[in-house]
């Protein structure tokens, strides 16, 4: 196995992750870059998703 640590720095903070691949994964660097970007994009999508929680009820 080969482990490729990577990170993205963004307005949302640093996203650090790792790609753990087979030794003979056969992926090109572009494909690896794309996978890393996809991981980051997925993270951003999660953390920027509109909150689903209910707003507090008004005081009566």
């Amino acid at each position, binding site marked *: *196995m080969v*482990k490729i*640590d990577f*990170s993205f720095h963004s307005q*949302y*903070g*640093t*996203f*650090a*992750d*790792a*790609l*753990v*691949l*087979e030794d003979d*994964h056969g*992926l090109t660097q572009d494909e690896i870059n794309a*996978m890393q970007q*996809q*991981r980051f994009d*997925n*993270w951003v999508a*999660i*953390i*920027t*998703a509109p*909150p*689903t*929680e209910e*707003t*507090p009820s*008004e*005081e*009566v």
Partner: protein
Amino acid sequence: MADRYWILGTGSWDSTTTTNWSASSGGAGGASVPTASDNVFFDANSNVLATAFTVTMANTPRVCNDFTASGLDGTMTLAGSAIGLTVSGSLTFQATNFTRSYTGITTFNATTTGKTVTTNGVVFGGQVIFNGVGGGWTLGSAISSGNQTITFTSGTFDTSSSGNYAVTAGGIDSNTTTARTINLNASTVTLGGSSAINFATSTNLTFNAGTSTINGSGASPTFAGGGKTFYNVAFTSTALSAPSITGANTFNNLSITGQTTIGIGVLSLSANQTINGTFTVSAGTAAPYRIFLASDTIGTTRTLTCAAVSLTDTDFRDITIAGAASPASGTRLGDCKGNSGITFPAAKTVFYAFTGSSTWGSRVWASTSGGTRDNNQFPLAQDTAVFPAATYPAFGSTVTIEANFNIGTIDMSLNTSNNMTLATGTTTPAIYGNWINGTGITLSGTGTLSFAGRTTQQITSSAKTFTQPITINSPSGSVTLQDALLTTGIATTLTNGTLDLNGKTLTVGTRFTTATGTKNLTFNGGTLVCPNANTTSFNNAVPTGFTTTAGTGTGTISMTAATAKTFVGGGSTFNCTLNQGGAGALTITGANTFSNITNTVQPASVLFTAATTSTFTNFNLSGTSGNLITIGSVTAASHTLSKASGTVSVSFCSISYSSATGGATWEALTTNGNVDGGNNSGWIFTTPPAPSAGNGNFLMFF
């Protein structure tokens, strides 16, 4: 411990089926279903050729020691509905050709250290739990449970000191007493749920924040820090609603992102906080895009000890800034009272300067009457907002308070002829200054108006009805009526501070009620009218801390409903007259003390709670011929009326189940139209016959 390899592609991973399990990669099926001590493998020989396949878990939870998906040459889907997966060893998901669709709890329960969790970008679909005494897990990649919680119950969780992998979840929960350790290293932890951090019970929790960053990205995250030391923590939502921090925590930096949603997000603090770096509240889009930093308990100060601050568009209530940053200053800071160590801008007067309808938070305010509108003139809690006469706004306009803003004085007194409506809708603004209606205005809205100014506040109604419930929540402060106040709102609530009727009449909506706090009702000759017929028309719901003051003149609480209503006295002393002012029966609960009791209508009933004693300084219930006042108990048992001295003399009263005591003479002479309804004591219904010489019943001694 055995190894189990998945074979034959799609199949069911349940508690009995052995078809898809082999003892070797690509070997024969029929091996036993993996137990918690067996390692499971999903590899290039798990499918038929290189086709996609689905492993559907059933019979929750599925268990294994190590879970390894590696070498897959066709896409594997790990499926199952609300199914749990319990891993007693390490877990590795393959970076490619692997998807997860099962939903349910994934539990890591190793009892030894050295385990790794490598999800390779696969997001868990349910809660993730780390719970193994003596267990130790280190991330091999970032971990995400989406918006589900990651729970640390026991063992040691480490984000990897070399990888500093990101953690993404709805929240982190470690609210227990078992020994556990969380090492965050330099990771970024993003928590999007409403319970971002729950360390409320932090006993036996070793929390090593490292140089991590924790971002609470939800609109109302709760940060229950348990008194731990964190590094950088940020509330990152640009539309904060009601976040909170509990626990006396320590931070390196604590920051709140500037708001891009107009309104006010309320960050409540239930304990003191220490910020060794910088406490930052960033600027919003404009002044009405605000953050409200407040103690969770009005009147109870929370101290922020800060090395440095950067504060913009922030309101403060019951906040002390201490440390090197004190006194703190900033831009457009609102003073909602109870603060220290903060330098606020001087109070200013601003003028509504828009000709038509608009909202409070819009660019409608100017520094001079009729001047240029400027967002920076948005009225803060210490300011006065004036609605000038003439065209600001034009006749028939509506100005809407669209958020729970903290508002100083609202002065509409000049608005006498160009009718305008001030609408609050369902918002619940807090008022820290005076409220002055003009005779040309109309009020609308159903959200509560809270008067919270701490010092002396005044309400001038100008004969305009408040449709909103009104709450007095002004510790050590007072709210004084300047004229009669009529509210049709659900409740008028006295929570903290003094409500001074000031000789005026306050007519409440559904009820007048008290709430937890130190509160006083001062009459100064004023009258509180409770016109509604219900079981809590006057409701001293929280008598602790409630006092009344007569002041100058005689105050009155008049219960005027034409049908049954209840005065819930709560056992308090009412330095006023309680008046039965409507035809409906008045029920009085509680062992209360009154200055007087009267009636202004008859016939009517005044019913006391059996087995309670009501104490009076004066007692002046009386009916008229044919229109009796009924004095009785709610149930068929006696109540007690007590007066210390003097003579009570009622007329045209029908009395039953009444025990009159206390030292006074209680006369209800039948010759005055009174009726003995039975079960009474202490009342005198008939005058003893006067002695006369004719009957000879005298003994004379010489």
